[in-house]
């Protein structure tokens, strides 16, 4: 395996454990009742689900971007890349919207254990999305400046894609553990 892909996979392995532990904290405190807002009372799985679809579909678009690059189709590559970034931004906007509505309900990171664990978990996920978007923007910028990835940085896009898929998968897990469990 190419060295940069290996490097990113190792990073992903490490970060996976980090998120796992934040999720474990969320789950283990879920049944501690100290009053105040709870997941049941304050979260909206449907709206968050819709915003999540934007993030999930961005995995498709980045995959298309990678394929276009391999086929040497520069314009398509940049287009799919841009789509990925926009979809990611919509997801983050959705997160911001959700957070604001939670603040309005009086649920903040220090209100109670739900607030503490929820905002820490989703906050760190959001940070990782932001980091990914930044990297994607840099790649897009380099592409528009005429950098030939195939020769200069053959594994860059693929490595970044791996990271982006990871961020997506983490959200699948968070969405499942935090939101889907509210529906059953």
């Amino acid at each position, binding site marked *: 395996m190419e060295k940069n892909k290996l490097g990113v996979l*190792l990073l992903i392995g*490490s*970060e996976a454990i980090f998120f796992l532990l*934040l999720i474990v904290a969320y789950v283990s405190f879920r049944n501690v*009742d100290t009053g105040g807002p709870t997941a049941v009372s304050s979260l909206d799985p449907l709206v968050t689900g819709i915003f999540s679809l934007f993030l999930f579909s961005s995995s498709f678009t980045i995959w298309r971007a990678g394929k276009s690059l391999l086929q040497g189709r520069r314009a398509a590559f940049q287009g799919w890349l841009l789509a990925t970034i926009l979809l990611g931004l919509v997801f983050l906007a959705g997160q911001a919207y959700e957070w604001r509505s939670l603040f309005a309900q009086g649920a903040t990171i220090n209100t*109670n254990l739900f607030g503490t*664990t929820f905002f820490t978990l989703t906050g760190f996920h959001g940070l990782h999305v932001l980091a990914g978007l930044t990297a994607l923007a840099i790649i897009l910028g380099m592409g528009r400046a005429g950098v030939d990835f195939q020769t200069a940085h053959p594994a860059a896009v693929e490595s970044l894609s791996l990271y982006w898929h990871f961020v997506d998968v983490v959200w699948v897990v968070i969405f499942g553990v935090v939101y889907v469990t509210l529906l059953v």
Partner: protein
Amino acid sequence: MSRIPLVPESDIPLPGLRSDHGLLSWIASVDHKQIGIMYLLATLAFFLIGGIEALFIRIQLARPENSFLAPDTYNQIFTMHGTTMIFLVVVPMLLGFATYFVPLMIGARDMAYPRLNALSFWLLVFGGLLLYFSFVGGGQPVAGGAGGANGGAPMAGWFSYAPLSERPFSSSSGSDYWALGLLAVGIGTLAGAINLIVTILRLRVPGMSLRRVPLFVWMVLVNGFILLFALPPLNAALVMLLVDRQLNAHFFTPLTGGSAIMWQHYFWAFGHPEVYIMILPAWGMISEIIPVFSRKPIFGYEFVAGSSVAIGVLSFAVYAHHMFTVGLGHPFNAAFSAASMLIAIPTGIKIFNWIATMWGGKIRFTTSMLFAVAFIILFTIGGISGVTFAMVPIDWQMTDTYYVVAHFHYVLFGGTVFAIFAGVYYWFPKMTGKLLSEKWGKWHFWLMFIGFNLTFFVQHILGIVGMPRRVYTYPDLPGWGTMNLISTIGAFVLAFAVLVFIGNVLVSLWRGQPAGDNPWDAWTLEWATTSPPPVYNFEQVPPVRSRRPLYDLAHPDNPDWKRNR
């Protein structure tokens, strides 16, 4: 003056910088050898600071009810001593050796990610400075912890148990500096781990399969994986603590539903693998040094390598042996006791491998070898007391006493630090082109051996007679004062030994005997180039058909690959 290797010219030279020599070339360097040396110098500096902290501790404890240090100050000092030695000395010093020697040992030109390598180093420096800034920056009168603005370094111990480390009980910023400093250092260390793993897996010279890499490289590889999975629990815990402290959250505050025990789970899920992180590369060094000075190959390469992989995996399964007194129930304790005993097996058998390597050899007692042999004995003592801790009822009496302080100093100082000194005497010639003085070295060794045992052996007894750890003073109970005084005297002997070592380094750098390429007649690839190596490492890498390429070159009629594999 030793020759400092040149920094490679970058593709697009930055305007206005003189990048070929001088201080700037070091600061801007992405060469693994320069970075490695910087690691060693920085961690040596932290070692001296941590050592001074230890001397302060020992002065305060030399007599019962001493008043050399205020309780507040003492508690900051022991916290910083532990934090410094673990995060700013042992782990990064081993990383520094790996950074310097792994690429050489595998015949590579540099690490996989040279710039990331530099970032790792500078994060260590930054994180360390941030941590130490707390002495001056964190000072506020501390309400729950103590009374008085005696500096604001963290004072909740190096493992910072909650809720003591939470705002209500640690109102100075010390714990924040602690968490932030460790996050910075930790990120650098994680980057270093990824760098080393990718380097070892991808940059080996053709012919050097994983079954032929030096054992030091094996240990660094396993270590990289342990770091990869042990740092996340620490980072999660640190982040959660900061969120609690800075944003008034509730992770570890029992009064509002949080869990003090969760901190312990998360911390020790890092903290136990951490101690293996601190010993594996040391075992690697010993596994290089003993064969060379016994003039025989390592006995049982496969078992030594394989047992390290086993330890890497098991290290995550034993962590709650730090929590036997928390009250989590007998089945829980029994499970972790079993795992802790299990891990003793791959740990212990290496002792036999090393002895069997010496057996039948022709042993040269260079200073390096003296440290390596002492390592075997001292690590065994620490290992035995470690097994006593796996036995839960013994732990129920001896944990949190000076017996455990003795235990971990035997494995970390008698173990790792002695191994590091063995490595220093072994590899200093390669890094500088000069040999360290053997005469000074013998003095260093014997002073250190005597000083170490004087300091720490008596602490086993102090624990047995009931002295808890982390106490700024103690009552005048029979024998306690005398034993503590002996320990303090030992600490000063140790300090003197360190001075002798520094003296040796300075004298040898100034006018040490030139080393040549391979002063020890060793067999691994780092010895197949000049001392110090040129910036590109090798003119030409020798062919690699076995674990000892240079042995093969020197024995064309009888190479390893003909009679072994």
